[in-house]
C-alpha cells in the first residue's frame, strides 16, 4: 500500500443517502405525529379564513345593524351582535387577519433580532456576551407585557406599534434560548476547524452555526407565535393595541367585558378564539420540540 495509484478505497458499508434525507427524516416524524397533523390542519384552516375573510364573513365587520343591538346569537347573526349592532361572527373572522398579521410580524422581529443577538453572544463570548446578556436579563426581569406596555407608551398606541412592542418584548427570551443552543456549537470541533481554515466570522456563523440551530429556531419561533398572539390581544384589551373600530380579538374582548352579564356572547367568542388558536400553536410547538429538540422535551 505504498503507492497512491495502487491504493484501493474501502467500500463503505453505509448505503447512499440523498442530501435531502436528513430533512425528510424529520418531516416523516412530523407526518407520523397526530398532534402535529391536527394542529397544522387547524392552523391552516385559520390561515385560510384569514385570507378569505371577505368571502367568508356574512356581513361587513363595521356595518351597524340598528334594529338588532346586543342581539343574542340567532339565524341572522350566528354569534349575536354587539353594543352598536355589529355582527360578532364577521368581526371575529376579520379579526383573524389582524391577529395573524400582527403576531407573525412581531415574531419576525423577534426571530431576526433574537437570533442575531443569541448567535453573537454565543460566538463572540467575553464581555460582549456579558453585556448583551445582562441587558437581556434586565429585560427578562420585567414581565414581557409590562415591557410591551412601556414601549407602546413611548411610541403611542397603534396596531403597528403594538406589533413592534410585542416583537421587542419577546427578544430577550428568544435570544437566551438561541444562545444556549449555539454555545454548545462554539466549543465543537468544526468551529475550531473552520477557524483553522481561515474562514470569516460571518461564514462561520452562517454555515456552521445556523444549520445546527434550525430545529430549535423552528420550535421556538412557533412557540413565540402563541406568546405574540396573547400579548397583542392583551395590549389591545387595555386599549394600547388595535384601535376601534378595527376588528381585533383583544379589542372585542375589552368591548364585550362591559356587557358580560347581559350579553355573554360578546366576550366569550373572541376569548375562545384566542384560547383555541394559541392552544393549537403551542401544541404544535411542543410536537416540533419533541422532533427537533428531543433533549429538552420533558
Amino acid at each position, binding site marked *: *500500500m*505504498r*503507492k*497512491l495509484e495502487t*491504493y*484501493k*478505497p*474501502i467500500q*463503505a*458499508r*453505509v448505503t*447512499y*443517502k440523498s*442530501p435531502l434525507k*436528513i430533512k425528510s427524516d424529520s418531516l416523516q416524524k412530523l407526518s407520523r405525529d397526530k398532534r402535529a397533523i391536527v394542529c397544522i390542519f387547524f392552523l391552516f384552516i385559520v390561515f385560510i379564513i384569514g385570507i378569505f375573510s371577505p368571502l367568508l364573513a356574512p356581513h361587513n365587520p363595521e356595518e351597524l345593524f340598528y334594529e338588532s343591538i346586543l342581539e343574542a346569537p340567532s339565524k341572522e347573526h350566528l354569534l349575536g351582535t354587539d353594543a352598536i349592532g355589529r355582527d360578532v361572527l364577521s368581526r371575529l373572522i376579520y379579526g383573524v387577519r389582524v391577529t395573524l398579521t400582527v403576531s407573525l410580524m412581531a415574531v419576525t422581529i423577534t426571530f431576526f433580532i433574537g437570533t442575531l443577538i443569541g448567535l453573537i453572544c454565543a460566538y463572540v463570548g467575553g464581555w460582549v456576551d456579558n453585556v448583551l446578556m445582562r441587558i437581556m436579563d434586565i429585560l427578562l426581569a420585567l414581565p414581557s407585557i409590562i415591557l410591551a406596555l412601556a414601549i407602546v407608551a413611548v411610541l403611542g398606541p397603534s396596531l403597528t406599534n403594538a406589533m413592534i412592542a410585542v416583537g421587542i418584548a419577546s427578544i430577550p427570551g428568544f435570544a437566551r434560548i438561541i444562545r444556549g443552543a449555539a454555545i454548545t456549537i462554539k466549543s*465543537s*470541533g*468544526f468551529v*475550531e*476547524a*473552520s*477557524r*483553522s*481554515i*481561515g*474562514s*470569516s466570522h460571518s*461564514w462561520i456563523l452562517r*454555515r*456552521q452555526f445556523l*444549520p*445546527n440551530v434550525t430545529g430549535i429556531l423552528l420550535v421556538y419561533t412557533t412557540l413565540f407565535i402563541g406568546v405574540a398572539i396573547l400579548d397583542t390581544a392583551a395590549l389591545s384589551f387595555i386599549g394600547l393595541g388595535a384601535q376601534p373600530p378595527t376588528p381585533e380579538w383583544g379589542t372585542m374582548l375589552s368591548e364585550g367585558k362591559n356587557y358580560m352579564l347581559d350579553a355573554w356572547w360578546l366576550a366569550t367568542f373572541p376569548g375562545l378564539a384566542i384560547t383555541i388558536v394559541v392552544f393549537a400553536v403551542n401544541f404544535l410547538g411542543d410536537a416540533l420540540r419533541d422532533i427537533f429538540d428531543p433533549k429538552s422535551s420533558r
Partner: protein
Amino acid sequence: MTTTLLEVRNLEKKFAAKSAWFKPKQYVHAVNGVNLQLAERETIGIVGESGCGKSTTGRCLLRLIEPSSGEVIFQGKDITTLSKREIKNIRKDMQMVFQDPMASMNPKLSIREILSEPLLAHKILRSEHEQLLSETMRLVGLPEEHLSRFPHEMSGGQRQRIGIARAIILRPKIVILDEPVSALDVSVQSQIINLLQDLQEELGLSYIFISHDLGVVEHIAHRVGVMYLGEMVEVAEKERLFEKPLHPYTRALISATPKTDPDEVKERIILKGEIPSPSNPPTGCKFHPRCAFTQDICKAIKPELREVEGRKVACHMV
C-alpha cells in the same frame, strides 16, 4: 532537509486559572518555552502524556490559541505579531488535521461543502473548484462520488481522509496533525499513516505530528520532541531517540511501548506518582518528583535544553 521552514522560539502559553477578587491571578502554564525547528519535507513528532501541552503547542502555531509570548517564524515573518488579516494568508500555507474527524466536521454539511470551505475562505476561483476537489479526493484515495455524502455516512477512516483532504486542498506547506490517528482502530491507523507519507512525498509537505502513540511516531517522524508539563525535555533524530533515549522521562516512555518480539528482554521503568498539576508545577526540574535519578540539584535548578550526543536534552544527570 535543508532549509528551515518554521522556527519556534520560546513559545509560552499561560491560561488564566480561576480568578477570585482581591487575589493575585493564577496561571496554568500549558506551554513553557518550547523551541522547535521544522525543515522542508520533514516530519517532527511531538509526544507526551495527555495534558503536557502538545495540542496547545500545535494550536498556538496556527494562532487558534493566542500564545502568551515567544516567536513563531514562518517564511521570515513572526506569526505572533501578525494582524488577523495577515494570519489568514498564513493559514493558507499552514493547515491542521484534528483528532476526531466526526467532531471536526459539521454534520449538516455534505463532504463537497466541507471541502469547499477552504476554497471559499481563500477566494479560489470558482472555475478551479471542481478540479481541486476531484484531484484532492484522488489524492486521499476516495472516490469522487463521496463528495455528495454526509460525514455520518462514512467510516472513521474515510472521515479522517476527508479531514486530511480539507487540510491539503489549498496545497499548504505545513500540516499540523493533532493526534490524527488516535480515534481510529489500528488497521485503519496504518492506512492513514501510509497516506500521510505518500502525500508528503507527492506534495512536499512538512508535518508536525502530535501524538501520544510512540509506535506511530516512530514510524512517521524524522525527528521527535518529547514534552513533559509544557516543556521539551528531549529533541532528537528518531533513530537515536528510540535506540538510546537519554532523558529519564523518555526512557520511561519508550520502555512502556510494547515490543513485537516477546522474547526480547526489556527493562520496564515504571513512573511513580501522577503527572503534577501545571498550575502548581514542581520547582527545578519538573520531572524530579517522579524521576529515579533525582539529586538535590534537580530540585533546585531547572535544567536547560543542551546538546548531548548530537541531540538536545534537558537533564542534569545526562
